[in-house]
């Protein structure tokens, strides 16, 4: 009898501890979160599979002659240098995150703007990502680069390495950048450095 009572108490205690763990330990968050590596413009961010460097940031109303979505709209263009460090890598996820944590997908408008990058091991790859954005997206914007493409529930890069690069746009600079009207001609994506690219 005493043994049965002890066993029942043990089972109840185990269930209670289990409940405490599931209620108070953020197991879901831990299981879902990517491994974020923060960086800034001009600084290499070393991921498990590639090095990501943002080499330039531009704001323009026109890329390769194509206007932004709305009259007076702007593109935020992010130039990158990417190197696969261990094996060939396909990086499908390049998106912008603004200061309010809103997401923006890169646009293909502008013939050389790309949305992903196929990297050969050890070969430098140059690619520009163009984001058709409203003004409020500029201040505090960051480029997120990862292997999985962006989805509505961000499941494609769970538990993966992810570069989160601050593009260095302060709130005070947003107005000046937005007022700029110089067109940007994006260079062809690939192993040829932008300075040497024919187009």
């Amino acid at each position, binding site marked *: 009898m005493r043994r049965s009572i002890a066993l029942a108490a043990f089972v109840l205690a185990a269930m209670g501890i289990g409940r405490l763990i599931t209620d108070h330990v953020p197991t879901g968050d831990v299981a879902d979160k990517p491994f974020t590596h923060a960086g800034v413009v001009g600084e290499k961010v070393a991921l498990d599979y590639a090095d990501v460097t943002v080499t330039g940031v531009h704001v323009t109303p026109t890329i390769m002659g*194509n206007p932004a979505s*709305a009259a007076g709209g702007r593109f935020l263009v992010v130039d990158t240098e990417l190197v696969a460090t261990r094996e060939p890598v396909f990086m499908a996820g390049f998106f912008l995150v603004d200061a309010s944590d*809103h997401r923006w*997908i890169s646009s293909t408008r502008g013939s050389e703007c790309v949305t992903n990058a196929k990297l050969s091991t050890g070969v430098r790859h140059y690619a520009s990502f163009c984001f058709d954005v409203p003004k409020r997206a500029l201040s505090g914007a960051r480029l997120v680069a990862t292997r999985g493409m962006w989805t*509505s*529930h961000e499941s494609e890069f769970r538990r993966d390495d992810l570069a989160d690069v601050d593009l260095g746009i302060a709130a005070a600079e947003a107005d000046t950048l937005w007022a700029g009207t110089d067109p940007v001609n994006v260079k062809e994506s690939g192993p040829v450095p932008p300075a040497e690219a024919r187009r």
Partner: protein
Amino acid sequence: MGENATAGRGVLGRARGFVKGRPASQKVGGGVAAALLASAPFGGLAAVPEPGPEPIAKGKAVMVGPYEVVVDQVVELPDLKPAVSPEPSERVVVVDMKVTLTGDRPEYAVTLTKNVSLTGGGVEVVDGPDLYFVEDATRMSNINPGLTYRLALTYTTSGPWQGDSVTVSSNLVEFREEDKQTLDPDAWVARDKIQSRGTFPLVRRS
């Protein structure tokens, strides 16, 4: 006969006494129930008819899931090069519209394209619908929030549209926060129900 009348008066009397003994709230409830029952032959108990689809009209904003859509016109063309190049016997019907993604995240264009349909032309849709940015004919597969795009929703039809009007319909698209069956939370899901419908004159261009 006299016995029956006496018995009837007895039953009525007992019923009257029973009703008199009830509290006022029960009397009111009983009265309402009796009135409803009496109105049954005239449709008092019939189900309330569901409201019809919301009208779509030129320049009027309607919601298709997260998208605010304003249809400006519907146009038929032999082609829409360089975006759409159909066979000579086919035609392209374009819904010329302005689209704004409300909300705070990008969405797939299919949430819009798969939920807008055209009827009334007596032709088959052999390709599409596809979505193009009007300014530069770029195909739109994703749309960012907060921007208004002028877009062409294109349908390649098997032949010329029969008639001078096009009915544009959109499905009900609802936000689903959680789905334990597909583990696909926070998604827009189309329902088998027409939410908006409107008829537009077909503009023909050669």
